């Protein structure tokens, strides 16, 4: 079964809007939640990450909101730009134990100018 679920599969927003990408997880031992982005022909690269001690993490236009009780977290991309068009993957890890990342299936974001 998919331990990390991601939605929507694809998302189109207009330039300047806020894009919201969602993820949920099942394993309560997960304690590290990164978001990676991947441009066509490239490998995934870390965008931003959060640990459950916080319920919000900001880095410029990118914000993670984290809800430990509901086992959900989301990525908000404010003032979306055409250059943000990419595939975004959420992931989860139990950090101190194995360190392996369990990825969601990805959201393909298209920002229309």
């Amino acid at each position, binding site marked *: 079964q998919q331990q990390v679920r991601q939605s929507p599969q694809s998302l189109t927003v207009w330039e300047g809007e806020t894009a919201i990408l969602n993820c949920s997880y099942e394993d309560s031992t997960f304690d*590290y939640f*990164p978001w990676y982005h991947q441009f066509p022909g490239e490998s995934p690269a*870390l965008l931003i990450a959060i640990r459950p001690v916080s319920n919000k993490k900001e880095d410029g236009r990118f914000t993670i909101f984290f809800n430990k009780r509901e086992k959900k977290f989301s990525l908000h991309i404010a003032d979306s730009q055409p250059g943000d068009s990419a595939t975004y993957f959420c992931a989860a890890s139990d950090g101190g134990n194995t*360190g*392996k990342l369990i990825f969601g299936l990805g959201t393909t974001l298209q920002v229309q100018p």
Partner: protein
Amino acid sequence: NAGVIQTPRHKVTGKGQEATLWCEPISGHSAVFWYRQTIVQGLEFLTYFRNQAPIDDSGMPKERFSAQMPNQSHSTLKIQSTQPQDSAVYLCASSLVGGGAEQFFGPGTRLTVL
């Protein structure tokens, strides 16, 4: 800083042949991860080394896949008797420490099994 290096970038094999993929982690990184990416399955964890020791191979198909890390500067993923369903992009990542640290991905090796 060259980043994670993977060779070859592309490999085409015939069904039943062997494929060996190479990864050179970022210097000073103690953790090396292998993942596989396909359109259908997405990014799947295969195996993980820390300080060259195998830590977790729970994602490895048991019969034909093996991975080694003979020294701190390279790791190999070997697939014996390749099958068409092994076609994927194989990604190597490294991080300073194992858990909860940023994983830096290499460019990947695109394996095509005919």
